[in-house]
């Protein structure tokens, strides 16, 4: 082994060790993390006030944090509980369904407790704004329960010295609301969309931040920590502040309404909308569940975002969702999807199977060539290919079907990563959440085992002994690699391996049957 090869081996081994170690000993680490974030949060809370002059846009809101967080109205439904505070902002929305619970098994909070809150109004006029932050809203109701078909209707009013603000709100059981704002006198103000909760344990590569869907099917996304200068948009169909699964969305704006994406101190995006004296809008806060969003308003489905690969992932999700309609279970839907992809590739496979029949005649010649060029793999490969071409039989699958698997796999990865529908979706036996890693490591191990077996029954000839070694350990590396992946994805890969093995079996059997038939014919002829 050369020094170079040893280096590569060392890198691979340390990678395997690192992944293995972090999966075997995660609890201590996460505890430390928790302490640190708690400390950071405490620090943030104490340092908020002195920073006020830094950026008036945000500090105005954070000042409020220190003054007032009292509840004004509590709305309660079967699925969620929502609170509006005395400044007429949505201060909290908690999803009651346990499948949305966070890592600490607490009901999920949709509204960020640090940062801007939905429906907060900031007046451009400084004196007016200062007064608006001190005077509480009044309301006709304090506790409302919502049920299917009977939305809650709330009227909130803020009486300032020479301005009266009225917010009329209608909150529906499916999580969306209508809002109508009226001012007694014209004044310039901005309405905030609110920021999403910074959730711990977000999956790799899941996008979170703010988006604006505008113009002719244009989507602008500003990821957290990436916000730069102020950006204005018109003709906005919807704007959303989102993470992996949840979003706060405002839609139903008139085309001439200006929506602004700004940055806060941490570089996270903040979205606000220029309001008017008589202002109407619709909003939604909750999980980005396709069917729910579609039933409220089809435009909302544009808020479901799979990163730069959306163009492939979005249709794939539709197929998966369609299959889910048949089986009623996401696990079986994933298996059906794997089968469907295999069926699309079947014409290729079938052609390959047909050429298998010719292989028998070719086999002895190939063996002869392999023996002849034993020490020179390059020459051997060339010679073998020459025979395949002459005889018109080629047993190999080809690079294209293989490379095609990569985008399909990535698209599925993105779908599984961002589909809130898969949260708490169970399959059979021990698999009770396809969006999270397998707690018993069974699926990844099965995946590795099938991969090993598949390698075992597929012939290969290596030109590089180093490569051969890595190849042998590939199932082990993949097992570790897949341990932290969502179970649904591991399931896809596992089922895919099984189909590959089955296919190989059928080919081998056909081949054996052909052989037997030919042998029988030969003995008959000899008998004559």
């Amino acid at each position, binding site marked *: 082994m050369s020094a170079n090869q040893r280096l*590569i081996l060392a890198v691979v081994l340390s990678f395997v060790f690192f992944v293995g170690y972090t999966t075997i000993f995660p609890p201590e680490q996460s505890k430390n993390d928790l302490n640190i974030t708690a400390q950071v949060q405490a620090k943030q809370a104490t340092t908020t006030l002195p920073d006020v002059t830094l950026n008036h846009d945000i500090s105005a809101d954070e000042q409020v944090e220190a003054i007032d967080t009292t509840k004004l109205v509590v709305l309660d439904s079967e699925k969620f509980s929502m609170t509006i505070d005395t400044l007429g902002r949505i201060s909290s929305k908690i999803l009651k369904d346990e499948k949305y619970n966070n890592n600490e098994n607490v009901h999920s909070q949709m509204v960020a407790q640090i940062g801007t809150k939905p429906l907060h109004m900031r007046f451009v006029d400084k004196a007016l704004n200062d007064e608006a932050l001190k005077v509480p809203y009044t309301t006709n109701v304090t506790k409302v329960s919502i049920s299917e078909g009977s939305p809650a209707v709330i009227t909130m009013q803020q009486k300032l010295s020479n301005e009266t603000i009225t917010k009329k709100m209608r909150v529906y059981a499916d999580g969306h609301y209508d809002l109508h704002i009226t001012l007694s006198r014209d004044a310039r103000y901005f309405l905030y969309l609110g920021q999403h909760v910074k959730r711990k344990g977000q999956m790799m590569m899941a996008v979170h931040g703010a988006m604006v869907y505008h113009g002719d099917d244009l989507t602008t996304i500003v990821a957290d920590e990436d916000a730069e200068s102020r950006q204005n948009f018109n003709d906005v169909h919807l704007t959303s502040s989102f993470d992996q699964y949840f979003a706060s969305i405002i839609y139903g704006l008139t085309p001439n309404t200006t929506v602004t994406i700004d940055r806060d101190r941490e570089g996270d995006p903040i979205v606000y909308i220029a309001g008017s004296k008589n202002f109407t809008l619709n909003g939604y806060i909750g999980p980005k569940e396709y069917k729910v969003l579609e039933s409220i308003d089809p435009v909302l489905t544009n808020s479901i975002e799979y990163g730069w690969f959306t163009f492939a992932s979005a249709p794939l999700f539709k197929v998966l969702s369609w299959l889910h309609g048949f089986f009623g279970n996401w696990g079986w839907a994933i298996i059906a999807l794997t089968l469907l992809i295999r069926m699309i590739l079947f*014409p*290729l*496979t079938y*052609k*390959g199977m047909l*050429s298998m029949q010719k292989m028998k005649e070719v086999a002895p010649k190939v063996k002869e060539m392999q023996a002849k060029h034993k020490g*020179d793999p*390059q*020459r051997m*490969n*060339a010679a*073998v*290919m*020459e025979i*395949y*071409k*002459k005889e*018109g039989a*080629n047993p*190999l*699958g*080809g*690079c*294209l*079907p*293989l*490379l095609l698997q990569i985008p399909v796999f990535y698209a599925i990865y993105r779908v599984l990563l961002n589909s809130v529908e898969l949260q708490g979706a169970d399959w059979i036996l021990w698999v009770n959440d396809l969006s999270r890693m397998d707690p018993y490591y069974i699926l990844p191990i099965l995946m590795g085992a099938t991969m090993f077996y598949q390698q075992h029954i*597929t*012939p*290969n*000839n*290596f030109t590089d002994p180093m*490569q051969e070694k*890595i*190849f042998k350990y*590939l199932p082990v590396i993949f097992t570790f690699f897949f341990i932290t992946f969502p179970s649904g994805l591991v399931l896809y890969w596992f089922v895919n391996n099984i189909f590959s093995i089955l296919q190989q079996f059928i080919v081998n059997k056909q081949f054996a049957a052909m052989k037997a038939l030919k042998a029988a014919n030969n003995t008959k002829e000899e008998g004559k």
Partner: protein
Amino acid sequence: MIKKLLLSLLTLYQKFFTLIGYGSCRYYPTCSEYARWQFEENPLHIAFYKSALRILSCNQLFPGGIDYPQKHRFCEKPVEKAEDLTINKIKFWLVPSKNKKISIIKNFRFKG
């Protein structure tokens, strides 16, 4: 510069990523090797185009077998040192084939 980057990417691919589906190419040279020869001997855009075509045709609808890259434009290059002409130093044979085309064929005895 771009050529060097692409060639090192190809090396990386050939060393590791190819392992995921090892030994499935229907051709000699394999698709990645074909691309390597293309990028070494032809202009970038030609090499891209030809390599893409090659990968697209590397499936069971095409026969596969031996398929050498063609030299896009032949120009004579003088050899600087006499020792570069020994059998172990020559990398490619440029072999005239049908239709005035020139195939690029790697010397089996080339020692890099």
